[in-house]
């Protein structure tokens, strides 16, 4: 059985530093996969390679059976790989609704293809329920730049979902959120459509265990261990890595 995403033998070097050294990763449709490891283990680099904003020196990335190694982030987004950034990336002068509309446009299917404004209207229809789902209806007309950090995070998730993703890359989504906001985030992520596969990079292990069904541990650019959350939790190797890597 082949996966939705298959990364093989991926290596990325920055000068003499090997950020990734022959990493394999396979994600199936609907799988919730977490990537953990100490700082500098190469988690974000791997996310960049999969999202298309970094090119590996060696290795292949296949998505949905096709080699996407030569495609940039935009082309990969059109194929269904969407990303949430460590710092929420939204369009500050556009309203929350407009943000979602813009994110929805490339993948929206208008009812009447050649009707003027059809795409926009279809995207607009998508935006309302998504904002509602994220609890942003009250601020739908507020420029995104005026939203609080937690709201921007929720908006970014709405934008990612508007792009009808098949694989969602989450880069430390809980960074900078309050405890209440983190709880809400976990609920939102648990409520994601079951068909969407997720690759989550996160430092907080409680979130990892709550959200994922498979965990890969990276260390120094290599795969240290992979397994279910329970296996990882009890692995002495992983404990050792965290004891070394994190103070």
């Amino acid at each position: 059985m082949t996966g939705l995403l298959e990364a093989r033998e991926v290596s990325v070097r920055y000068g003499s530093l090997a950020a990734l050294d022959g990493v394999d990763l396979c994600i199936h449709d609907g799988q919730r996969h977490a990537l953990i490891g100490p700082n500098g283990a190469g988690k974000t680099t791997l996310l960049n390679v999969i999202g298309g904003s970094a090119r590996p020196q060696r290795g292949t990335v296949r998505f949905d059976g096709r080699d996407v190694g030569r495609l940039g982030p935009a082309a990969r987004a059109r194929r269904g790989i969407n990303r949430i950034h460590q710092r929420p990336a939204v369009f500050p002068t556009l309203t929350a609704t407009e943000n979602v509309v813009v994110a929805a446009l490339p993948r929206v299917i208008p009812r009447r293809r050649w009707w003027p404004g059809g795409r926009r209207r279809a995207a607009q229809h998508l935006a309302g329920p998504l904002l509602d789902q994220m609890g942003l209806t009250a601020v739908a007309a507020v420029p995104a730049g005026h939203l609080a950090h937690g709201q921007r995070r929720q908006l970014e998730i709405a934008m990612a979902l508007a792009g009808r993703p098949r694989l969602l890359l989450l880069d430390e989504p809980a960074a900078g959120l309050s405890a209440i906001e983190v709880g809400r985030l976990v609920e939102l992520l648990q409520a994601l459509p079951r068909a969407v596969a997720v690759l989550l990079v996160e430092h907080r292990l409680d979130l990892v265990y709550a959200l994922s069904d498979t965990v890969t541990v990276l260390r120094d650019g290599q795969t240290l261990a992979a397994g279910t959350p329970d296996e990882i939790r009890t692995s002495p190797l992983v404990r050792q890595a965290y004891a070394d890597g994190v103070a």
Partner: protein
Amino acid sequence: MRGEVIRRARGGIAALVLVGLVVAPWVVDDYTTSILARTLALALVGVSVALLTGVAGMPTLGQTAPYAAGAYACAVVGSRVSDVGVVQLVVAAAAGALLAALTVPLVVHARGVIVLMITLAIGELVVIVLGRWRSVTGGTDGLAGIPAVRPFWGFPALASDQARYLYALVVVATLIGVVLVLLRTRAGLVLRAGRDDETRLRASGHRVAVHLSGAHIAAGAIAGAAGSLLVVAQQYISPADFGFDTSALLLLGVVIGGTASVGGALVGAALVIAVRDWLFGVLPGHAPLVLGALFVATVYLLPTGVNRARGRLRPRDAPAHEPVAHDQATVAEAHR
């Protein structure tokens, strides 16, 4: 609530200005009327500059290039083919769009100050070509004696300055209306998003280069149409109408007016041109000096202005996800 009031006030002011512009030719003398007609043409080029600089985030010094292409195309067509205004407008807009399309590969992959330099070079090259290609352009002597335009088949030729001014006013108002409508569509929304954060737009799957190319070509068409209005107003054109001072003046006007709004661009362009023409009388020979000083002052303030509006001044691959920016003022705000 407050937004509503401001919007209404703005609409009221716009209506007043429009009424003023309509009655102007009966109030002022013929010479001023013809200057006003020329100013209208320049203001329309200013709109195209605002479209690129403010909405799409590509600061440009080269909109004189499609402006000149449109003007010369219109002059040649007007002298040799047809004196019908609609024909001239379409030909001029097509010429401007064509020139813009040809320069797309040079412009859309660059950002910020680099765009300024490239567009400046394009504008200067066009002026040089106009000076050298004597068989078509008349060289530095320009083209004179272009017959008066008739707006549509069956209409009389517009013999008076007033009539030509009103023709220009109708065309400019119509085209600005079209631009304002288009900016409310998907195209305008995506352009504004790209100005905010190009990397983010790409991450959503948008083809940013395609959007920018479209904006560049549309701005070229607008500037080309403005060129045809210049021909109508002056019945004479020469390369001197399209020099660096014109593009610098337009960019200055647009920046002062607040780059992101079409209305601001119009006010800014009109203001700068009025200052230039007024200074021309008060301080003969020193107008360029004063405008140059104004330009330096504005450019000195530009980093704050351009940052928020007009995000493309950051290097291409720098992380683009700064939290926003309510602490960064636009140039317009700094002026208040």
